[in-house]
Structure formats: C-alpha cells, structure tokens
C-alpha cells in the first residue's frame, strides 16, 4: 500500500506545524480554493523533502509568505498543500560595510528594514502591504514595488543572490554575495516575478543603500492633465533627481487629504515629488521643483517628517484598503508620454459606468495603479454576474485594448473570482510565451507549483 502523501508531509514538518481542520484551512484559500493541508516548515531541507513527496504524488503546492498578494494571478487549477514560509524568518547576515544582507525569505520586510535601520541602511524597495506582513520571498515572487522604483528600481535591481528549492526537491542557488557578478545565468532575475511557479524561494541576498540624511516632498495640484504632464516632463528633463514622482487622481488625493487633513484644493490632479539626499541638496532641489510648479500655476505644500511618511504610506496602501470583496486592482505599464492619455481614459471609462476609481501613477516610470471600487460587494461564493461586475470587466477590457495599442501591458493584481473568471489576469504574454512555457515544463514537468495561476 502506498503511503498517504499528506501524512508523509505532516511527518516531515511535525504535527505542531500544520493546519488541517477545515475551519483553519478556510483562511488559506486561494481564490476560493481551499487546501487540504497548510504546513509551516522550519528549514530549507524540510521544504526539499516536501517537494519530493509532492513531485512524486503530483500534489499541487502553493507557496505562501505573508499571504498579502495571494490574489495575484489567475484562479489556480488546484490547491492541495500550502507551504508557508513564516518560520524561515532569520536574518542570516548583514555586512553593513559591504552594504549587503542575506535573509531567509519568510522574514517580513518590516522586520528586515527595522534591523537594517539600526545600521542606518535600508533595502531600496517600498511595496504595499508592509504593515500587514509582506515577506521578502513574497515580494520577490511577485516583483511588487512602490514609488521609490523611480530611483532604485524594483527587486530586479536589489536581489543579487538567491537560494530556491526546485519542484524536484533540489536546493539550488544563483548569483553571489557581491553586487557585480556575471558568472552563469542570472537566476535571481528568473525568480523575480515568477509567482512561485518555478520553485520555492528560501533565501535572498540583497544590495542595500545608506539611509539618506534628509527627505522632503513637494505636493502640488494642477487644474488639468496637460499642465500636469508638462510639469512632469520639465522635472524629468531637469537636473533634479527625485526619488519618487507620483501622480494622483482627484478621487485619490481627495481621500488622502481628508485622512491626513492636508490643506489642498480638491478635485484636481496632484503631483508628489520626493527628494532625498543631504539636507542642503534636498532644500536646493525642492526649491527648483517649486519653481517649476509655480510656473505652471501649481498650488503646493511642502511636507516633511511624519506627515511626509504618512502621505507616501497612503499612496502605497490606498488601493488595498478597499475591502477585497469590493475592489479590483490593476497595473498598467506604458510610456511616460502616454500617462495622461491612459489616465484620462481610465477615469472616463469608470465614470461612464458609474464606477469609482482611485489612480496613482509612477509618472517617471510609466506605471499606473488603478483601484476600482464597487459599492456592493461581489458575491464571492456564487460569483454570480452582476451589473457592476460586468461593468468592471468592460472597463478592464477597454483599458487593456487601449494600453496594448500603445505597446504597453495591463495586468490584474487583485480581483474577485467572478472578475478573474471573465478576463485574464495577465493578458497577452507576447511572442516569447512559448519559451516561458518550455522553462516551466523543464523546471516543473508535473506542474505542481501554482498550476494555472501564471505560466
């Protein structure tokens, strides 16, 4: 008689580190698909043993960090076991003089940053969900990022070494503990954004930055998008080097300024420019930003200290504060010069369908985040079509068509199942999708990792 593979997995991690009661497992559902088991391994070796069992028995595995982005991707075909990295939570090494650190991937970004801060350093990435416990592994797997990507890029730039467990259980590494390294293929980049479909990420090595001496943000509002875009292009084409350059639509800046009691005119487009450097250099650049803004009749506020931090936190977190039953979050990547057009189209499409949308955009990168809010929660259990749900689907389809015609891309980051079942989360993967499928088939021949969610 063959052994029950779930029993084998329970034996690997020990009975104290599993969840198997239906009531407990509910919380670990992925798009409504409830696993049969959730396990909390402590070591890379345990994960390797789990993968060997799963590979032999063809169990579908979903890796999970803090669970904050478990809604990314398509509805999975199958979820048997959730492998949660919460107990792989050690900071292994922080060599401050080298500006490099290595951590286990279940470490939360919050804990990691707090540790680095003691040596006046930071990991140059500011994705959402940090307060809710987003883990380093989850951020690598989703390549999630925030406004600071203008200056520092994403995980793609920060991750220099990686250790993963492949679906066959082999433990492999790529990269090194040095910033510059071209030995072999760039395995860290392959795993950034691979959404847990090529292996379970267990360790990461990162390049770090010193925390700048000073930071200030100039927040200005503009009567229309044309003037707003002229301002953006003037700043980008100047000697100013902003850390963040963010555009906010009237709904979003209205909500944020209510919450933070900012003295701002509402119903206008807002631009937030963050400068970080030595004190004197910050003041000098901020005055240049103000000068450009004044020339375009912008009305501005200078923010620093706690209120500045709060503003950026709101910008990152706002879309995700909407209840998950009422929200659809998308990311569009377009050219810098196409930002106003797509911005406007999104607002008009939503307005026409009576949907409320909050938009923030990385104006210097051409990356826009749309959160569409509906008033009545979607019927999660039934997924029954409703008028509003269909309107959201229409908006996404129209926006995707527009963005595609501009050679950009639009992906759904989070949406109720009823939406995801009607419009693909990823859209067209382009002419190289066949190579991606070959990679997936070679790495994971039985498709045990996150089947259906991504590649």
């Amino acid at each position, binding site marked *: 008689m063959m052994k029950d593979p779930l029993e084998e997995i329970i034996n690997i991690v020990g009975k104290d580190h599993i969840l198997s009661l239906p009531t407990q497992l509910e919380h670990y559902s992925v798009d409504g698909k409830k696993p049969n088991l959730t396990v909390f391994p402590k070591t890379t070796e345990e994960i390797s043993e789990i993968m060997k069992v799963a590979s032999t028995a063809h169990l579908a595995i979903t890796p999970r960090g803090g669970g904050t982005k478990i809604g990314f991707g398509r509805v999975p075909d199958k979820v048997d076991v959730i492998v949660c990295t919460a107990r792989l939570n050690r900071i292994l090494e922080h060599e401050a003089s080298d500006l490099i650190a290595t951590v286990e991937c279940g470490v939360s970004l919050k804990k990691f940053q707090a540790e680095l801060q003691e040596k006046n350093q930071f990991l140059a990435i500011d994705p959402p969900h940090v307060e809710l416990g987003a883990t380093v592994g989850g951020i690598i797997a989703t390549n999630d990022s925030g406004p600071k990507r203008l200056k520092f890029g994403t995980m793609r730039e920060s991750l220099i070494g990686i250790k993963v467990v492949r679906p066959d259980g082999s433990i492999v590494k790529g990269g090194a503990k040095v910033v510059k390294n071209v030995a072999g293929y760039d*395995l860290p980049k392959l795993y950034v954004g691979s959404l847990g479909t090529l292996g379970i990420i267990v360790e990461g090595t990162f390049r770090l930055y010193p925390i700048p001496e000073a930071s200030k943000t100039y927040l200005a509002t503009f009567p229309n998008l044309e003037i707003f875009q002229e301002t953006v292009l003037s700043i980008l084409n100047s000697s100013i080097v902003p850390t963040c350059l963010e555009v906010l639509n009237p709904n979003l800046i209205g909500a944020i300024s209510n919450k933070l009691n900012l003295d701002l005119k509402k119903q206008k487009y807002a631009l937030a420019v963050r400068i970080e450097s030595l004190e004197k250099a910050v003041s*000098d650049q901020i005055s240049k930003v103000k000068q450009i803004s004044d020339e375009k009749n912008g009305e501005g506020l200078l923010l620093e200290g706690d209120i500045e931090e709060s503003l950026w936190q709101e910008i990152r977190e706002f879309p995700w504060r909407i209840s998950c039953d009422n929200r659809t979050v998308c990311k569009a990547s377009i050219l810098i010069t196409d930002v106003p057009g797509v911005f406007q189209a999104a607002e008009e499409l939503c307005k026409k369908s009576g949907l409320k949308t909050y938009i923030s955009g990385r104006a210097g990168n051409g990356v826009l985040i749309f959160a569409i809010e509906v008033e009545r929660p979607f019927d999660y259990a039934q997924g029954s079509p409703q008028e509003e749900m269909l309107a959201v689907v229409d908006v996404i389809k129209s926006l995707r068509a527009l963005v595609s015609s501009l050679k950009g891309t639009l992906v759904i980051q989070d949406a109720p199942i009823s939406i995801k079942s009607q419009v693909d989360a990823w859209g067209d993967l382009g002419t190289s999708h066949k190579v991606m499928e070959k990679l997936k088939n070679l790495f994971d021949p039985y498709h045990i990792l996150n089947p259906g969610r991504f590649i």
Partner: protein
Amino acid sequence: MSSKPVTKPSNWKKSFADKLLQILGTDGVISSPDEIIAYECDGLTGYRVRPICVVLPKSAKEVSEVIKLCDNENIPFVPRGAGTGLSGGALPTEDGIVISLSRMNRILEIDIPNQRIVVEPGVVNLWVTNAVSSSGYYYAPDPSSQLVCTIGGNVAENSGGVHCLKYGVTTNHVLGLEVVLPDGEIVEVGGKTLDHPGYDLLGLFVGSEGLLGIVTKVTLRILRKPESIKTILAAFEKVEDAGASVSGITAKGIIPAGMEIMDNLSIRAVEEAVQAGYPVEAGAILLVELDGPSAEVEAQTPLVIEVFKENWAKEVRVAKDDDERTLFWKGRKSAFAAMGRVSPDYYVQDGVIPRTKLAKVLGEIGKLSTKYGLRVANVFHAGDGNLHPLILYDSSKSGQLEKAEELAGEILKVCVDEGGSITGEHGVGFDKKQFMPLMFSEEDLDTMYLIRCAFDYKGLCNPGKVFPTPRTCVEVGRTSYREHPIEKSGLGERF
C-alpha cells in the same frame, strides 16, 4: 549537443557555405583563409579556432534564415560583435560558423521624452551616448572598450564599467530585445515599457554570453546627464586605509558614481606610461567620482575629504577643472596598457570580492605572487568589489604563460573563498568555464542548463562555453523528473 549526420560528403563545408551565399550574397559570407583569420579569436588571443566561414547578415530575417539552415543541418554557430571580449566568448567552433553582427549597426529610434533609444546590435557603445548627448542624455554602462565594443556584445556579457555602483550594469539599462532563437524563430522580449508580464527572459538573456540566441534589436534606457561631476584623488600609505575609506564614504550616506583603487605597482606603471601626476610613493590611490545635482555634489565633497583624512590619507586632490579630471582618469583607464611598460606580457583577471575583504585578498595575492615568482599589479572597482589583477609574465620564457594562468586560477579561488565571484564583467566564456564548479554545485549548474535547454535544445548556439562539462538536454531534463507512484509500483512506465 545532438549528433552530426553519420556520414558527410567530403565537401560538406563547401556546400554549406554555398547555401549561406544563397541567403546572404557574396558580400555577406567570408570564407577566404586570409580574411577569416581576423575572426579566429576575440580579446582572449591565446586561443584560436578557424570556423567554416563567417557570415555578415544585415537583418533579423537574414539571421533567422542562417540559423534555420544551421538548425536543419546541425551546424553550431557563434555570435560575434566587435570581438573585444576577454573570456573567449566569441571563440569559433571548428565545424561551425561565426555570425558577425557588425553590419547591423543602425540607430533605429531616439525617443528623448520617454528616455529610450532603439539600436541594432552592431552599434558601438559610445555611439549611443553620442546620439543623445546634444539633448543632454547619455547611456550609463561604460566598459573600457566603449570606443569599439558593440551593444550586442554588451548584452551578451552584461558589461559593466567604472560607474556601476551608482548606475548598475547593462542588465539595468536594457528594456527590450528582439531575439532570433536557436531554432530561427524571431521573438520580442520586453519592450519600451516596463514590467512585461511573464518570466523575466530579458534578465536571463542579458549576460547569457551568446548561448540563448542572437539579439537583433535592443531597446535601452538613457539617462539625463548629471548637472555636476567632481573627481577626487587620495593617496594612502596602506591599501587597507583606501579600502576603509570606501566603506566610510557609503557610511556617510553617499553613493559615488565611481570609486577606483590602484596599488603601488599599477601607480608606477601608469606614471611611467602617461604621467597622470599620481604620487608614485603611495601604497594605494583611491579615485572617487561624485556626480548629480550641483548642490548635492558640493555638499558631499567636504564629507568625502573628511573620510579620507580620518583614514590617514597622505594627500588629497580635488580636480580643479575638466582637464585635471580627465588626467586623473587617464591614468586609471590606461592601467592595462601601461603594463606593457613594466612587462613584456600581462594576463588580466576579473574576480569579485566583498569590498571589505580587499586588504586580506591583496595580502593573499601578494603571497601567491611570491610563490609563483610573477609580479601582480591590482586595479580595483572598489565600489562594487570587482578586482582586476594584472599578472605580469614573459611569453618568450617557456612555461610562463601556463604559470600566469595557474596563478590567475588561484586568485579566483581566493575570491570565491571570500564569498565573491569568478567574474564581474568579462564573462565566463571559454576562459573560465573550468572554474564554474568553484561557485556552483552540480545541481546549480544543472538548473542553468535547464534554462539553456528551454532556448536551445540541440545546443548549437555558442557551444563549449560557460558550462564546465558538456551535457545534453535529455540528461539534464531527466533530473527534474521524479517517478510517479504508478511507475514505482511497476504498473506503468513513462514514454
């Protein structure tokens, strides 16, 4: 690699070359021995192989047709840019052809507001900056060979330069590629916009050393030129103090554009060659370049000087003007060539170490130098830990080249032992493939081979490079399978 047809007619090379002529015309195929000689090696001149012929396609379509023909007839092909690579990445194979991209050298699109430029792979690195310079922009990666090396070659090698610490290497500046895959299919990877959904094939392709396909179009990010640049030179008695200054600078929250250290032997050679005005008695000099908004550079300069003084600098000079700045850099940039003044031959290596290990590693290199009886000069991209030991030898003395290579291998071992890498920017290529197991286990290498198999199942694209032992995709693929219980229990089998 898949097996060749069992019997080939004796004139198969000639008939293969004829088929290439049909695709490319007479000016697109080089097969005369006199002309082929230039393609027998790249910058690693110690190894030479004569290919069947060299082809010079002018478009992605021609590249694709050539590759389809190679695929049909199982002929290996080696892509080549300007041939400046230092690791033998463009070394031909005897029964294969070289595909030179030198005729695909057009700049296709300049898009200043979106900070992008689209070029063909044969475009020379410096041409990119020249094309956007009048608009106030530049292309950041600046390998020392930037006057001749091509963007296609930079993509293959993931080239660096002296400004990597702040601005990154080639992979951080390539946003899109058009690639001819090893079966001849033309695909797009990435594009002018960011965050294309799917796996990061762009990240895999950059630095793949020509093993995954041939790039026929490249979209690059261009950057706004910094408002101000300041170069500061500091001389130290001890290398340790120069190294400590590097960490001291970053501890002040400053990330300079470049930080370069040269040891005494390098300083002396350089002074003899170009008279850069370096203090020849110094144990080490550190060049620091700050760039950015003027106010920032002005505020950083005194802090950097303060760090130098804290670390016992004997002398600190701030370049007064562009001329002096150029002179400071001239010394560093001519370091390799200057070795010719102090030695008949030199062999350059490309190890990487965590920068805090510099003093220790230089100590080890000193011991190895004594052991082998060969002098070693060191130049060091101190910001990112990339060490270039220059091993001085005399090829007219028998056995010295072999000794130099052996010494280089020992230095790479020291680098890896200290947590570093066998190559920071020159690539593994043919030169260093035997050192890959120093850094990577068999499983790590198998994983990289799986990537190769997803692109090039037959292994025709630039074979014999990077991987220490030849494998086939069938062998490697087998490792990722596990027996299904039905197979285990003998109830079924896989076929």
